[in-house]
């Protein structure tokens, strides 16, 4: 009796774990297949350009506006803390470093996951539910090459650009609040920023981060869409999973990358 109950619990646990691992393996093979069939997406580049329009260009407004406001809040909060130590000229450093290193890549990736990632999943999931993907296969068109790869590459290309825009907009917001509104000296704001933000150490590392996040978000989005149950419920579940999984994956990857990049 007790043994049976215990056995059932262990079985349930084992089933969950093997299911996760199986899915992870499937996702890895899916990524490999996507990379293998990227030839079409890069050769017929207008397919990818179309997807860049939907993922990148249409995310511009939300990225720019949030970047501006994040920068303005950083300006206000940073000034409030720094003035206690009488070093308000360091406001530029604070705003620029926190945006370029962390907030730019991470927040824009989170926004990108919920704005564009969920849309990609829903689109591919619905294509699957309405059997468009099967129809393509019937016509000897590989849906991974025709549908998945362009969306994947569009996300990978858009993400670093969006993160750079977010950081630039945020620094502009910090400048607006710090220099124009509060009255920190503009010269020291910019010069201190330039003296402590290193191109290789900070900016290039930020771009590398956002590139990695772009791969993660696009991968999860196309995989969840392709793997979704072909029902209305399945598509909605897949969309939710995309946002949750990619947000967690972004934060986790950010920790790993930061530990390697900025430990010294």
């Amino acid at each position, binding site marked *: 009796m007790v043994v049976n109950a215990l056995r059932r619990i262990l079985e349930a646990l084992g089933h969950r774990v093997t299911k996760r691992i199986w899915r992870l393996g499937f996702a890895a093979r899916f990524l490999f297949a996507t990379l293998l069939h990227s030839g079409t997406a890069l050769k017929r580049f207008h397919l990818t350009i179309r997807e860049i329009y939907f993922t990148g*260009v249409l995310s511009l407004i939300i990225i720019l506006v949030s970047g501006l406001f994040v920068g303005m809040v950083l300006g206000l909060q940073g000034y409030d803390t720094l003035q206690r130590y009488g070093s308000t000229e360091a406001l530029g450093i604070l705003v620029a470093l926190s945006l*370029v290193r962390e907030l730019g890549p991470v927040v824009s990736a989170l926004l990108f996951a919920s704005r564009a990632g969920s849309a990609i999943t829903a689109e591919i999931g619905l294509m699957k539910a309405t059997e468009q993907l099967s129809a393509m296969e019937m016509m000897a068109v590989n849906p991974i090459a025709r549908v998945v790869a362009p969306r994947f590459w569009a996300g990978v290309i858009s993400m670093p650009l969006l993160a750079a*825009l977010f950081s630039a907009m945020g620094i502009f917001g910090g400048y607006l609040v710090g220099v124009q509104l509060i009255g920190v000296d503009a010269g020291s704001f910019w010069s201190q920023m330039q003296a402590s933000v*290193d191109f290789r150490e900070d900016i290039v590392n930020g771009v590398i981060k956002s590139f990695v996040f772009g791969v993660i978000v696009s991968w999860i989005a196309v995989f969840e869409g392709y793997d979704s149950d072909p029902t209305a419920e399945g598509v909605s579940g897949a969309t939710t999973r995309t946002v949750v999984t990619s947000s967690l994956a972004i934060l986790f990857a950010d920790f790993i990358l930061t530990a390697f990049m900025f430990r010294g």
Partner: protein
Amino acid sequence: MNRATIDLWVGVFVAIGLASLLFLALKVGNLAASSTGETYRLQAEFDNIGGLKVRAPVKSAGVVVGRVADIGFDAESYRAVVAMNIDSRYKFPRDTILTINTSGLLGEQYIGFEVGGDTEMFKDGAMVKKTQSAVVLEKLISQFMFNKAAEDNGGGEKK
């Protein structure tokens, strides 16, 4: 939406994305400052460089004239060897004294040039002889404390 419009918007998007990267590199970062023209190399030995870092500024009269390129350790003399890239527009006399200073009480450390009066100038790759080490704040404080303690003890014995 037709293809030309989409191409246009994607073009605009990529252009402003690259422009903001350029803005980050030039206006926010130090790419512009690090790649200005010709430099020559100077080396100097210090007893203690404190918290000096690679890429720290080299200043003369408060103006940045170069940057620290490399920091090494001489295993024979047990001294720190600091290599600097100095802007070739500026020449310094051979009896210039190099000191490691701190900007502000807790600010970053930099190398200061105290210009001498020699008529001969430093050449590329020259080794600077006259240097003055960084002031290590902890040493200064502990020295002060020990002196203070010694004074107090001395005063007590006299009584």
